[in-house]
């Protein structure tokens, strides 16, 4: 069996993955890079990011201020050495992207424009109208086409990481189009598969975001860090969860309750609509409890009012918001307020990495939302995540390429055997049985229990119920049956494999949340309302076991900023 071999193999071809691929090929000339993606790279969820990309670009700003905003936003759970590296390298990365053709919005003098964003003290968010992620992704993808060293595996779905002698040496992947499982050998593998928002029922996330890469790492003994921290974005459309970018508040939009009040004056008087997302999302729940919200068929909501911005500003800076609201809710924000409510948006947690994107498993790296490099701590600031894809995608690509230069390929015969075993495993599990459980039913039950136990407010009892339910769902998953037993483009099979990943990530998330008996950032425990630095100023690490996950802890790295009370 002829096995393709790459020095560096990317799993995932979104913002982080493509940046890493380019960095790897530029670090180690002659390196052979592979990019495996279950969708064509330009379909990756980076495409949906709207508001912008943070970096210190102006005279009124400085690196320490960006660092402090990020650290405070994280509720002091980020690693401060990581933040310091991030703010410094962010500047070059956004300029690099400018050189690669990203159509950043511009000031009259030709400089890239910056806008205000939640939790940022000054304007430092670069943007391409309100399609920043789309433009970033396409600029990266189109630029990546000029690198002959990069080989793409479009619509290949990774089913496992190959491990030999304790190091990662490749992957097995389903070629979705043919239905065959192949081994792909690699000296370094970088996971850039994004987050896991789809384990919740109501999310801004695309269908593809099922925590694939997190689960792949978890299954070979790599810990998942700080998984309990899930960001709710305060402004999604009810029902569909379609994101109304934070930039609409950055440009001056108001949040108004059913009493006609800008209710945030009660919760974040110093920042109002530009408060951090965790606090704004909780404020919505408080208003809901006070019955100060509107009621609709898709749950309660408040109003995002942009009318005072006027048509010109809306069309120039928020055209996508106008397009989306017109198409999906029949509302023109120039004339009417937009109904919005909090919606699951981002996983702060992920594959545990060091400051360079290296995991504890030799040969395995991670970057972007799939990773937890500990930039975002307990709550990410809006517009830091696109920059994170660039900075830590580049770092991971460089370090993985250096590792590859000093490493040999594993034995291809043994990889071929592992691929055959994987093909058998999948055929037995999904085609060989007459299981009665439908993918969609288990998935729906999972999403329901995640919202009930691991939503905006959490309690011991609800989390325990969620942990129990996930255990039951994992049992039911063993009895899964799929309708489609054919090979060519079998999306039923892909969905079933994705559901396995979702269950693993959900399990790690719920157990990490259960044991964190404090409130910090996005993790709000109604039964432990205070932040507890004495016991919990530390990262959680979830390890998979045969039973419930084992949760360990790791100290937070502090450099120059002492934890303080987080008020705005």
């Amino acid at each position, binding site marked *: 069996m002829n096995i393709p071999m790459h020095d560096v193999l990317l799993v995932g071809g979104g913002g982080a993955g493509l940046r890493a691929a380019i960095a790897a090929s530029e670090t180690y000339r002659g390196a052979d890079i592979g990019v495996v993606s279950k969708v064509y790279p*330009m379909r990756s969820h980076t495409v*949906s990011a709207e508001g912008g990309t943070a970096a210190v670009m102006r005279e009124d700003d400085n690196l320490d201020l960006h660092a402090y905003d990020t650290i405070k936003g994280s509720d002091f759970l980020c690693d401060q050495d990581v933040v310091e590296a991030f703010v410094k390298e962010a500047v070059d990365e956004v300029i690099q992207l*400018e050189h690669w053709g990203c159509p950043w919005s511009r000031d009259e003098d*030709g400089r890239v424009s910056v806008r205000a964003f939640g939790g940022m003290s000054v304007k430092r968010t670069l943007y391409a109208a309100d399609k920043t992620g789309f433009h970033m992704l396409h600029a990266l993808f189109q630029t990546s086409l000029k690198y002959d060293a990069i080989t793409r595996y479009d619509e290949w779905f990774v089913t496992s990481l190959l491990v030999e002698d304790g190091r990662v040496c490749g992957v097995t992947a389903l070629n979705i189009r043919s239905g065959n499982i192949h081994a792909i050998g690699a000296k370094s593998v970088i996971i850039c598969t994004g987050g896991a928002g789809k384990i919740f029922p109501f999310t801004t996330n695309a*269908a593809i975001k099922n925590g694939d890469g997190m689960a792949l790492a978890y299954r070979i003994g790599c810990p998942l860090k700080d998984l309990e921290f899930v960001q709710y974005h305060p402004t999604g459309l009810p029902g569909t969860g379609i994101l109304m970018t934070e930039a609409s508040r950055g440009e001056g939009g108001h949040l108004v309750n059913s009493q006609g009040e800008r209710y945030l004056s009660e919760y974040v008087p110093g920042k109002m609509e530009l408060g951090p997302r965790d606090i704004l999302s909780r404020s919505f729940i408080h208003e809901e409890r006070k019955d100060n919200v509107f009621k609709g068929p898709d749950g309660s909501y408040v109003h995002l009012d942009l009318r005072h911005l006027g048509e010109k500003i809306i069309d120039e800076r928020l055209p996508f918001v106008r397009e989306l609201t017109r198409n999906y809710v029949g509302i023109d924000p120039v004339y009417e307020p937009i109904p919005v409510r909090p919606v699951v948006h981002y996983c702060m947690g992920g594959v545990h990495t060091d400051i360079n994107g290296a995991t504890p498993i030799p040969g395995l790296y991670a970057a972007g939302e799939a990773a937890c490099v500990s930039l975002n701590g307990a709550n990410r600031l809006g517009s830091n995540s696109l920059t994170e894809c660039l900075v830590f995608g580049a770092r991971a690509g460089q370090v993985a390429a250096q590792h590859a230069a000093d490493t040999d390929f594993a034995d291809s015969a043994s990889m071929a055997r592992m691929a055959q075993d994987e093909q058998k495993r999948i055929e037995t599990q999904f085609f060989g049985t007459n299981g009665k459980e439908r993918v969609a039913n288990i998935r729906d039950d999972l999403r329901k229990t995640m919202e009930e136990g691991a939503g905006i407010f959490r309690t011991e009892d609800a989390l325990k119920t969620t942990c129990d339910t996930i255990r039951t769902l994992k049992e039911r998953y063993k009895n899964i049956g799929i309708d489609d037993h054919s090979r*060519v*483009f079998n*999306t039923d099979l892909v969905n079933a494999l994705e559901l396995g990943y979702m269950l693993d990530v959900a399990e790690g998330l719920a157990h990490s949340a259960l044991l964190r008996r404090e409130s910090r950032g996005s993790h709000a425990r109604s039964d432990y309302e205070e932040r507890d630095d004495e016991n919990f100023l530390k990262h959680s690490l979830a390890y998979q076991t045969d039973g419930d996950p084992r949760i360990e802890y790791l100290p937070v790295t502090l450099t120059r900023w002492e934890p303080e009370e987080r008020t705005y």
Partner: protein
Amino acid sequence: MSDHKTIKITVLRYRPEEEDAPTEQTYEVEFRDDWVVLDALNHIKDHIDGTLSFRWSCRMGVCGSCGMMVNGEPKLTCAAMLRDYYPKEVRVEPLVNFPIVRDLVTDMTDFMDKLKAVKPWIIREEEKPVSEGEYRQTPDQLKDYKQFSQCINCMLCYAACPVYGLEHDFVGPAAIALGHRYNLDSRDEGIQQRQHVIASKEGIWECTYVGECSVVCPKHVDPAEAIQQTKVATTTNRFKSLVMPWGNKT
């Protein structure tokens, strides 16, 4: 249940391991006023027939995955409201002008090759080091190409293009628009390297200016305009190259 409104969805089926030619299959699903066509397809897949295959991801009209023919027109199924068709039956087929891989999934390899052929990246004679900062680009310079940078590669324009339907060597609307987007970018110096593809017989000159590509484009990229602008510029440049052999971007 009986007072629930329903709608019939007829989809093209093609399972290459089982059948030599496409067939069709009709499903009856609940009609919901807020559903898009894609929601109905997902309902079928989740609860009625897991064997139906199609691509989708963002469900907000920006990833470009879910383009299909809906009642004969190329559409993003995540942006096509079911209520615009109700109570009539909805027919969903794979985008025309592409080979069918399976059911509603088409083969877009040809586009991926053409995209790369137009060199859709910034080409400079000399790269400016990152340490020297950004290129200045005024809002007016941005405006020159911005519209053509909005392409989400959804392939609706190729499905609508009668020329591509007949002549698969045609570079086609999206790829030409994207090449043109870089030609118009003040940071770019690569027009000469793209012209042998874009300004070739298989490039702009194949286009008969039917303009259907621009009609169906969900992002108002207006590829027909890109083609027209390139035709004009190429003609001008040909003339210019006689008197100014070094060529130049306009």
